């Protein structure tokens, strides 16, 4: 349900779709459409897609600089949610022309690849965008892999701003590492649990004993 902005070349009445009605298309006014419809119209040469601002070479290179020079081990932050929203991507339009230019949305990799493939002629400089996308991907995947070294069986790793495709790509490996660490630390974990249970039981029996004494006193 990602929305993109198109510039129609032909008129089209509004359609009543399951996801809600689409706006009527009147060239040369921009309109926001679901990605699949935009791709269909683009293929039929009935519309041009205007790429979201974060797919512009200048914003991409700014984000890349931030990733490499300032963010350290963290990822560049995700787009800020407008105040008062209760939904989150992909139900928020993060790839229309009104999207923030300085942040990569959740589906940045997918959207970028799809748009570069379907509508390269709507980009000013598709090759530069392609190159920057690849650089960003490499840089962020390297960070994801470096995060493995700080992982703990019960610990965490800050992944704010990571994209959906990157999560999927890292899932099997990171899950495997955590599983392995948990297996190695299982005996320690077991010990800790036993100790906690013992303490709980001891505490419980101690108070129970006190009650027993009280009863005797009453008698």
């Amino acid at each position, binding site marked *: 349900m990602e929305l993109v902005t198109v510039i129609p070349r032909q008129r089209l009445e509004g359609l009543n779709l399951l996801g809600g009605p689409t706006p009527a298309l009147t060239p040369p006014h921009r309109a926001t459409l679901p990605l699949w419809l935009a791709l269909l119209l683009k293929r039929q040469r009935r519309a041009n897609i205007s790429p979201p601002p974060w797919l512009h070479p200048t914003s991409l290179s700014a984000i890349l600089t931030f990733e490499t020079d300032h963010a350290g081990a963290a990822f560049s932050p995700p787009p800020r949610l407008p105040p008062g929203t209760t939904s989150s991507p992909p139900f928020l339009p993060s790839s229309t022309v009104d999207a923030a230019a300085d942040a990569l949305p959740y589906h940045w990799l997918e959207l970028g*690849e*799809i748009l570069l*493939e379907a509508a390269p002629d709507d980009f000013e400089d598709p090759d530069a965008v392609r190159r920057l996308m690849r650089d960003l991907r490499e840089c962020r*995947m390297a960070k994801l*892999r*470096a995060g*493995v*070294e700080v*992982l703990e*069986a019960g610990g965490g790793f800050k992944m704010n701003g990571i994209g959906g*495709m990157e999560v*999927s*790509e*890292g*899932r*099997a*490996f990171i*899950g*495997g*590492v955590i599983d*392995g*660490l948990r*297996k*190695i*630390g*299982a*005996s*320690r974990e*077991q*010990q800790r649990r036993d100790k906690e249970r013992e303490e709980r039981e001891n505490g419980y029996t101690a108070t129970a004993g006190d009650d027993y004494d009280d009863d005797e006193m009453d008698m």
Partner: protein
Amino acid sequence: MGSYYNIDAILTDAQKVPCTFDLTVPGLGYIDGNVGGDMKEGSKVELPLWLGEMLALSQNLNTSSLVTLDLPTALSPRVLNALKADPRTVDLRAIAPYFYNLGARILELFEEEEMIEVLSETFKARAAVIADQAHNPRGALGEGADFMRGLDENERQLFRAAHDSAKSVRTWIAEMKKK
């Protein structure tokens, strides 16, 4: 660990551990290559982990346990020191094909705080190298080949997982372009 039919668990349990018999057992000499003879008290034998564990933990009504387990050579202080010095250069597969699983099983039986630390650190350090190798297949065939040969079974699965995920993403991009 795992299901009854888990082949990895079975193979882990088949790894040998040194055991010392605390009692003389009549007629058990064939384990030690002494067919028909007795297993003498104090003799050291290498038994599969599952058998050694069973004999060591079974408490008979009146006697102490039958055998005493020792640390396997795979987890001897020498190996742990080597891992502490540089986890990346140790050939784990030559030491034990199921190194980490063996370690986890042994840790259930022995209390070795330090071993947990060493194994976790080793696993983490090597996992990072595995991830790098999985994303750059030329390295795995070239200078990384020695390292790749020394991976234990767990680490091989990890390598496969990392490699397959990267491949799936590449496939998705290629498939999308075909349409």
